[in-house]
């Protein structure tokens, strides 16, 4: 397994990637667009991209992922994609009847410089229907950038400041997380008794129930009305700076809704901060129900600390998730010695270095990294646990290290997209997974005389 990955670290100067820890923008844009109610995401480019993105999302969520494509051929690549886009718009509304179509670009259309707004200006869009777009060149950023761009597109196209005074409601931008996480964030805010608009919101779309009927547009997703109304909210909480900042700032500029950029609420600290922001922003006491949950979490953390305290861990994945996970494993007394994301961004390195410094840990931190290097780090300093997406299983097997699957994509296990990692409940689940993985390994490796009933 991965026998060609040498221990010796040699700088690779080419700038190429071996076993990337990121993918391209459009898949993030497609996922974000699925979080609008009755929206059909549209991939402007050749059909291969759309096919790959639908395939990967479907494998992660195990639910239908509907999206259309401009199906470029060589001719369109030479003469521009205006005709393909206009035909697409006509066919999409005639055949699939969405309320809104959310167009994102691909490498191809970015390279030839297709001007989407210009095309939209002359396209036939049926009365009452909406088309929005964002640019998603895959040679910039990552899938997280694409998610961020589409979310921002929702604001630039739809948000309106239409009321004189702001409403007592909060905008929640959840970032690139699972529908299970979105549901948990919404639950926390509901328990707080605060009105909210979450966007995008893929819950009820990519975790839709089995009913005996296929719904092209399931019940979930932020409605167009709600998206417009985001301009009237009193506050936006942008959860996860990489995925949510741009939209929140655009909303601040466009509709004067103050933006507060926070961590994805993973673990006790970030969840505390999230609730405090709501409490202070809306002058609302934290109800006992949530205080009780928090107390339970801290109880568990303390009761089981010897399962994980002092264990070394390597974390990789998307930046907002990795930042949250690293902070949480630190609060568990674990030692994150390798932390990596494939998404570019100095802010990632800065934030994590500060975290490790504060904890007195010397570790490897890298943005724009790949799993080849991550594996080499582990070969040079081994760890007790790896936390990351499915691609980590090859390293885990090569080095015989347990893997806890968190993030995107998870292609080889199920149910994960329904279960949160955010909030206090999500933190409990993370502990269950981390403890379980460590103890399973201990059980597996124990001699008969050391094999224990109670642990």
């Amino acid at each position, binding site marked *: 397994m991965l026998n060609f990955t040498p221990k010796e670290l040699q700088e690779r100067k080419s700038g190429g990637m071996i076993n*990337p820890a990121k993918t*391209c923008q459009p898949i993030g844009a497609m996922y974000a667009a699925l979080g609008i109610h009755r929206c059909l995401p549209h991939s402007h480019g050749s059909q291969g991209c759309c096919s790959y993105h639908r395939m990967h999302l479907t494998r992660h969520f195990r639910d239908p992922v509907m999206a259309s494509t401009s*199906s470029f*051929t060589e001719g369109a690549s030479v003469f521009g994609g205006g005709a393909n886009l206009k*035909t697409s718009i006509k066919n999409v509304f005639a055949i699939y009847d969405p309320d809104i179509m959310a167009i994102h670009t691909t490498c191809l259309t970015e390279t030839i410089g297709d001007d989407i707004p210009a095309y939209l200006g002359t396209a036939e869009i049926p009365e009452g229907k909406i088309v929005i777009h964002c640019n998603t060149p895959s040679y910039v950023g*990552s899938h997280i950038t694409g998610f961020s761009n589409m979310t921002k597109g929702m604001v630039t196209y739809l948000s309106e400041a239409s009321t004189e005074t702001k409403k007592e409601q909060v905008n929640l931008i959840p970032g690139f997380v699972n529908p299970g996480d979105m549901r948990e964030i919404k639950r926390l805010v509901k328990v707080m008794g605060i009105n909210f608009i979450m966007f995008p919101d893929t819950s009820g779309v990519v975790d839709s129930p089995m009913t005996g009927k296929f719904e092209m547009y399931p019940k979930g997703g932020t409605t167009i009305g709600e998206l417009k109304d985001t301009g009237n909210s009193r506050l936006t909480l942008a959860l996860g700076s990489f995925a949510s900042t741009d939209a929140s700032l655009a909303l601040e500029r466009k509709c004067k809704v103050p933006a507060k950029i926070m961590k994805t609420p993973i673990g006790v600290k970030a969840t505390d901060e999230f609730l405090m922001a709501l409490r202070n922003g809306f002058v609302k006491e934290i109800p006992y129900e949530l205080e009780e949950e928090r107390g339970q979490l801290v109880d568990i953390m303390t009761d089981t600390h010897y399962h994980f305290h002092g264990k070394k861990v390597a974390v990789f994945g998307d930046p907002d998730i990795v930042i949250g996970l690293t902070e949480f494993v630190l609060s568990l007394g674990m030692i994150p010695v390798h932390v990596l994301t494939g998404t570019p961004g100095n802010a990632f390195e800065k934030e994590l270095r500060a975290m490790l410094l504060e904890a007195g840990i010397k570790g490897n931190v890298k943005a724009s990294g790949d799993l080849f290097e991550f594996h080499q780090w582990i070969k040079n300093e081994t760890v007790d646990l790896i936390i990351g997406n499915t691609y980590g299983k090859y390293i885990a097997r090569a080095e015989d290290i347990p893997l806890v699957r968190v993030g995107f994509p998870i292609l080889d296990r199920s149910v994960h997209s329904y279960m949160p990692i955010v909030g206090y409940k999500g933190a409990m689940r993370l502990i269950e997974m981390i403890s379980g993985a460590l103890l399973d390994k201990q059980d597996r490796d124990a001699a008969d005389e050391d094999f224990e009933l109670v642990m």
Partner: protein
Amino acid sequence: MAVNEKDIDSILEAYPAKVKRNRKKHIVIKDSSLAHQEIEANTRTIPGIITNRGCAYAGCKGVVLGPIKDIVHITHGPVGCGYYSWLTRRNKAKTLEDGKNYLAYCVTTDMQETDIVFGGEKKLAKVIDEVVEIFKPNGVTVSATCPIGLIGDDINAIAKAAQEKHGIPVMAFSCEGYKGVSQSAGHHIANNGVLEWMVGKGEMTEAPAKYSINMLGEYNIGGDSWEIERFLKEIGYHIIAVATGDGSYENLKNTHVADLNLVQCHRSINYIAEMLEIKYGTPWLKVNFIGVEATVKSLRDMAIYFGDPELIQKTEDVIAREVARVEPILNQYKKICEGKTAFCFVGGSRGHHYQKLFADLGIDTVLAGYEFAHRDDYEGRQVIPDIKPDADSKNIPELHVESDKKLFKLKISPEKAEELKKKIPLSNYEGMNAEMKDGYLIVDDLNHFETERFVELLKPDIFASGIKDKFIPQKMGIPSKQIHSYDYSGPYAGFNGAVKFAEDVTAMFTTPTWNFMTPPWKYKPMLEGTVEEEGN
């Protein structure tokens, strides 16, 4: 169950006029009373249509090149394309003594904005250098993605220079996603390269053993090719190379000496098969190892080709033993499957092949089609001269081959070949349509809208397709089977594969989970009357 034109029209009615006209030509109701039924295929997908099709890159790097294990495959482009084609197809490969198996590695030049603006040639050259140094592979391929052709990177020149520098084959494939109309263009581009740069590069000048064959168009999904090799070897065949499942450059370079080429997936590999015949004098035989009956027929056809009584006897012995072994097991599953109906919409060959396996279980395929096939895969190879090249097919280079002066060897005489062609599909493929039943539907490039409507119309018991449409019928309560990735099971080929398939499909029908689809409160009254017992 037969469908009529009116049913189709009423479904297509919902389309804008232009779409309707176009799609109508891709749909045929089988009618054997007609001399010939033409279907439109391998034409552009209409913009805006939700199609299952992928691109040329997927067909080239993803399908044909990707499985070659001792070569490092570099994707030249932004990160996505390489990422999505990394370990996602289930083409399994065993690592041999030399250790050279690179399938778990995904190498991409990860083009950045500056590379797009100033060109990515230098970066590509550096990535090749690094890869050769780290992996010491037997070869390197470079597959281009959409932006590469547009910015004008000369990947052939880079590859050539790298080949000279490193002394191993470095092969460039211009399989940009916008070429052609589907994966099919990529198959063709890859076939050309494999023939040009790999085949014939080995040291062998004649077949290393009796009954030497190549297996073409077999990708070892879920271990299919290992199951096929099991009985082929037992019968006495010597397999030189598999193209390309569990394949290697080491083996592919000697493909030219085989006595016969087997063609499993016609669409993705027929170019190589044809060119091998012209260049080296080796005929090909269309086989299908999916389904017991199909496997038996393929084995017998192979034996007829070689015509050796001993081989024929051994073939019959193995068939007798294997059939006796698996038939009773299949009969058990058949009790559950018999009389059911299927949709079978896959790629470019399996849409046909799997009908045989369904038939083994008593399941009738009422709608079948291919995602990216050509007319010959439907109507048979005799239509090839009638297929007019269009703008999209013209931009895929045709490799013109001639007989190899040193290595050409006619494996059988032209007279013998003619005689055999009457009995077996030698250098010929009859296509899917011939085997469909009257009144059943053949649909090319079946799209989402039609999937939904045809499922409503024909209510199949099982839907066999890929991951993107899998969960659509499944939400409607219809079991949905991935025939590209086998839902992570397999092998499904050969005798053991048929059993595995029967087991999996039966489980789909019988899983108790279907019983819970409707919650009890939807059919039970809220107020239940209590009948007082006597004496109370």
